[in-house]
């Protein structure tokens, strides 16, 4: 036998067809080729990206029969057009002897994706060492009681031959130190997973004091370098962010709650109200170069010597003053006037400590 691969023809355009697209191999001779599959050749990265994508896409479509084209494309982080190209490409994939049932068969019917033949691609492959290491680095930076268990599980899910590389890579990325004690994080993660209320001992910076709060924990989020718990504060009767590094202790309650739907959560914002007027700072050249590489700092004016005026949204007068002082004389708060006064007053009082 020849053993040669016969490609199925390109899928027919036109109205969705309930019939399987693949034609009998007898109908396929000569050099037919789906143009879409050729375009994707290109650079090495493209081929690799596509392979990784389809190795997820096929099992995901198997698990979610009739998933909308739009949803599957969004899940894969590509456009609908790109997804359809991927599906065309997959029609050409199969294994010897390349009989009709030896090909992958995914088809679109009424904007929904169905899988007729998955050719053993019913689950994605194991994690690559960099996939597992990226997840491990993120988990270590968040922290919690489960960190070492999660890391051990990630390691097990990398192909055996690649585990030494995983171990090495984990030691070569450090994404930050946990913002709260392990036990606090562990309990929060558990409460989020089990939809249980928590009682927090929380330090409020605006009050300068600790207080007790009962919260329905919805999720955690990270903004501008800080981790927050986001959830419904029962005594204040509204969703609020709580900085993790200000949670002194956390107790799991017995009460369970119904979390908001994903659609509802998608409309939430970490900080609900406008944070007041943005604060402007004038920065010397070195301070400017440093500050501008941080998130949340917007350049307003730049002088020839490199000095700059920048604006920081959602900063607050107190924070802006501390930030300016931390730049060792190379920064001052210039606007709005109330923030300028706050800064000047802080400088005066601090100087008095040295002269007093």
């Amino acid at each position, binding site marked *: 036998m020849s053993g040669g691969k016969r490609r199925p023809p390109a899928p027919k355009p036109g109205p969705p067809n309930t019939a399987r697209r693949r034609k009998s191999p007898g109908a396929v001779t000569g050099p037919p080729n789906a143009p879409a599959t050729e375009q994707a050749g290109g650079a090495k990265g493209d081929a690799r990206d596509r392979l990784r994508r389809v190795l997820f896409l096929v099992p995901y479509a198997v698990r979610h029969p009739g998933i909308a084209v739009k949803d599957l494309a969004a899940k894969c982080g590509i456009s609908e057009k790109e997804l359809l190209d991927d599906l065309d490409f997959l029609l050409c994939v199969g294994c010897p002897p390349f009989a009709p049932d030896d090909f992958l068969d995914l088809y679109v019917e009424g904007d929904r994706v169905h899988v007729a033949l998955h050719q053993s691609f019913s689950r994605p492959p194991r994690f690559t060492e960099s996939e597992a290491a990226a997840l491990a680095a993120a988990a270590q930076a968040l922290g919690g009681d489960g960190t070492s268990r999660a890391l051990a599980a990630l390691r097990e899910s990398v*192909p055996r031959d690649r585990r030494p590389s995983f171990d090495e890579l984990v030691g*070569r990325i450090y994404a930050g130190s946990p913002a709260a004690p392990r036990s606090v994080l562990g309990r929060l993660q558990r409460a989020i997973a089990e939809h249980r209320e928590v009682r927090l001992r929380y330090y409020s910076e605006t009050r300068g004091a600790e207080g007790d709060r009962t919260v329905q924990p919805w999720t955690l989020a990270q903004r501008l370098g800080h981790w927050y718990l986001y959830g419904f504060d029962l005594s204040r009767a509204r969703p609020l962010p709580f900085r993790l590094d200000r949670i002194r202790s956390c107790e799991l309650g017995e009460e369970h709650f119904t979390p908001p739907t994903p659609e509802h959560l998608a409309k939430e914002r970490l900080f609900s109200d406008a944070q007041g007027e943005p604060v402007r700072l004038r920065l010397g050249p070195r301070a400017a170069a440093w500050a501008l590489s941080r998130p949340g700092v917007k350049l307003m004016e730049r002088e020839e010597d490199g000095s700059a005026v920048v604006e920081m949204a959602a900063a607050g007068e107190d924070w802006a003053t501390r930030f300016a002082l931390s730049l060792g004389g190379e920064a001052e708060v210039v606007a709005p006037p109330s923030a300028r006064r706050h800064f000047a007053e802080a400088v005066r009082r601090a100087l008095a400590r040295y002269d007093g």
Partner: protein
Amino acid sequence: MQKAERLLDLAAFLLRSAEPVAWREIQEQFPGEYGGSDGAAIRKFERDKAELLELGIPVRWEAGDDDLPAGYLIERDEFYLPDLELAPEDLALLYLAGSAALAHGTFPYAKDLAHALNKLSFAARAAGTSESAGLAAHQLSQGDQRERANAAPVPGMAGILEELSGAVAAKKRVHLSYEGADRGQRTERDVDPYGLYQATGAWFLVGHCHLRRDLRTFHLGRIARLEVNRTAPRSPDFAVPKDFALRELATREPWEYAVHPPVRCTARLEPPASYEARASFGPRAALRDEEGAVVVEVEATNAEALVRHVLSMGDRAVILAPADLRARARDVLAHLSRSCA
């Protein structure tokens, strides 16, 4: 046949085979791919095998015995992503941490992280709860459009981090155009990238610098240009020393950066000294209570950073010693005071 198609065909074929497949058989089944001279065909097959492994698909060669023929195979257990068997809270940890990191926009192996999060739903029973908490974490961490625009990191930062991640994993040498702390000092250097760390919201590269012939730390925001050695991508250019300890470097306080010989420094926290203020000097600071105030003693190798940290606390802290450091802090405040007048 293009490569992506060939690799998938090969994977499907080996996955379906119940027993190892002899090389001859593979050649027969893929005549257009692995035909031709034996040496060239085997090299091509070996490259494909390596690429499959990089995708998480291990192709093994089995020596064969009385029962089984010698050949290549993909064992299903070694191929399919297993169930991680994690408790719900541990799964929540992975989803929340991964989603927030991805939302941040600059994270090493960001593409891999996105794939990993997608694949995670196959590695757990009832991942639904954690997955939706993860989606919310992603969304809240990103902020709205306007905030995102304001918070946009330096253009190109994500690209530089992605390139460096690849170089760190493959141990490939990189060439940097690096802006010094003072403007106008751009240097060109080759660096063996040992690791990447994040501190105070910024990413740093640590590696052996061939210009300085020593271990150096580079702020990614100051890398003006980056070039990864593209030759022999699967052969490492260097080995990372056994005693390389990234965590120790990453968790240094700014005044512990190696700039000058160690100096004992003391500062006073005015009462009431908050937990935050005490903790902000890190685990290696010695703290003692003194008439309601707290005296902090640290060993600094970059005293300027200590001055700045104490200054940022306003009138709640002062530098006590050494005298020149105290004078420096006072000068900064006097200068700012004149400027504010």
